[in-house]
């Protein structure tokens, strides 16, 4: 890390960025805050509502359920994608022509628009005409993601694993290739087993990139909307209604802007809080 000199005029370099991001972040946020604390009957007439909406949201079963489903979804996909991503990165060749082939093919899902991801999985999983759904039913597994909550969950998780594991793979792979050959040689001399090499060399050296991976996956899985609305629409029933979907249903479907705004804020701050805690913990760990 290079040493930095103090220079206040460096602010001029960041002003354009601050202006642009603030324009996009603060004004909409103020709008949300506005709705969250007030009641409107149109025509821009507002009545102060204080914390009513917040109480209502925080006490509603609906929010609790969506929140629990969200936590469950995020935990499951993190538990699958992170170890799987690491395992695939470990088994990839380090050099040679296959590396490019692997990277290009693996990165492909990351660049497919999210609604297409949802649509693709929808037609892939359809029980009567989809490859996955048809095959499962053909071998005697009763599978129909439009009717059965369990099937819907499995399909959703499979889709997310399909969509995002490559991100973990790419990051972990980048971390792995950055380890100097001397470490592996020293480990051989020291008689380390494969597991010991993983535990004492590869994992510690991947820590930084894995932090990025987990943070990104956490944030993005907490925001998942487009893929899911196209795949299941939050159903059957409310079984796959995660936070974002619930929020949009509330805001656009029922036009309950007050509670929706209050929920937006709660939601945003939960994401922020968890990321902040995670971030500080990692930083502390780093300094030790």
């Amino acid at each position, binding site marked *: 890390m290079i040493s930095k000199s103090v220079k206040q005029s460096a602010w001029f370099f960041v002003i354009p960025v601050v202006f642009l991001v603030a324009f996009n972040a603060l004004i909409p946020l103020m709008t949300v805050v506005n709705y969250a604390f007030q009641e409107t009957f149109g025509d821009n007439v507002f009545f102060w509502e204080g914390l009513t909406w917040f109480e209502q949201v925080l006490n509603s079963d609906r929010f609790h359920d969506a929140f629990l489903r969200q936590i469950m979804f995020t935990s499951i996909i993190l538990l699958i994608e992170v170890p799987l991503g690491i395992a695939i990165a470990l088994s990839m060749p380090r050099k040679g022509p296959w590396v490019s082939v692997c990277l290009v093919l693996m990165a492909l899902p990351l660049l497919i628009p999210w609604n297409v991801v949802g649509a693709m999985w929808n037609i892939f999983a359809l029980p009567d005409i989809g490859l996955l759904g048809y095959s499962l039913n053909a071998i005697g597994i009763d599978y129909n993601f439009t009717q059965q909550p369990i099937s819907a969950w499995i399909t959703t998780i499979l889709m997310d694993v399909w969509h995002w594991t490559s991100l973990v793979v790419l990051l972990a792979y980048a971390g792995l290739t950055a380890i100097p050959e*001397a*470490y592996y*040689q*020293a480990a*051989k*001399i*020291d*008689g*380390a*087993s494969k597991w*010991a090499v993983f535990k*004492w*060399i590869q994992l*510690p050296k991947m820590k930084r990139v894995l932090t990025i991976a987990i943070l990104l996956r956490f944030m993005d899985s907490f925001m998942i909307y487009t893929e899911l609305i196209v795949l299941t629409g939050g159903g059957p029933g409310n079984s796959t209604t995660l936070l974002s979907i619930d929020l949009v249903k509330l805001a656009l479907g029922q036009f309950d802007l007050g509670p929706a705004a209050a929920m937006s804020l709660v939601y945003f701050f939960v994401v922020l809080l968890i990321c902040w805690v995670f971030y500080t913990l990692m930083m502390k760990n780093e300094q*030790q």
Partner: protein
Amino acid sequence: MAKISLQDIRHSYLSNPRLDVDFALKHIDIVFEDGGAYALLGPSGCGKTTLLGIVSGLVSPTSGRVLFDEDDVTDMDTIHRHIAQVFQFPVIYDTMTVFDNLAFPLRNRKIPETDVSSRVLEVAKMLDLEEGIHRRAASLTVDGKQKISLGRGLVREDVNVMMFDEPLTVIDQNMKWELRSKLKELHQNVRTTMIYVTHDQTEALTFADEVLAFKPVRQLPRLAFVLNMSDSVSRVSR
């Protein structure tokens, strides 16, 4: 411990070497006698590290044989050759303590914990690493880290040969002298074969009983009386 013979070794990092320049080692025939202290001297890129790699099994030679005593070990794994090697730049296990770093080669070989502990403390004492031995190794300076790397080579008692690849490059001047004497002293006590790679003539001559100088010889005027043992390696005895 064993006598190590390299017979007719050639090595190229290319997959299809044809010309002479494709070879990092053109033709090597050397015998390291059991218990000797050797220095390998030569300019950068002449193949010193490659040679050590061939002895330790990290590199398998394009052609030729490696013998430990009379056994052909050319195709044997590094772990079964029982060798210790220290690299030019420190390699430490960041997340372990200094103690665990030193104990690592022993624990991997399932040595009883009491022996591990006494052996580690002995080596730590020799290298002045006792203070903060239970701290994380990552917190040490470069000197300290390189001492750990050295220490991991020294803790093992059953080795056939200890190899040092320019181990003192990152260590400051005073310490260099001290560590070199320590190594020399150690050699006199345990009589393990040691091979020491360096750029520095003085270092080579103070450490070793025998200096093996890689060609081109004209860069080493003081060794003008070298006996020409082979195509590319010359040997001088004190």
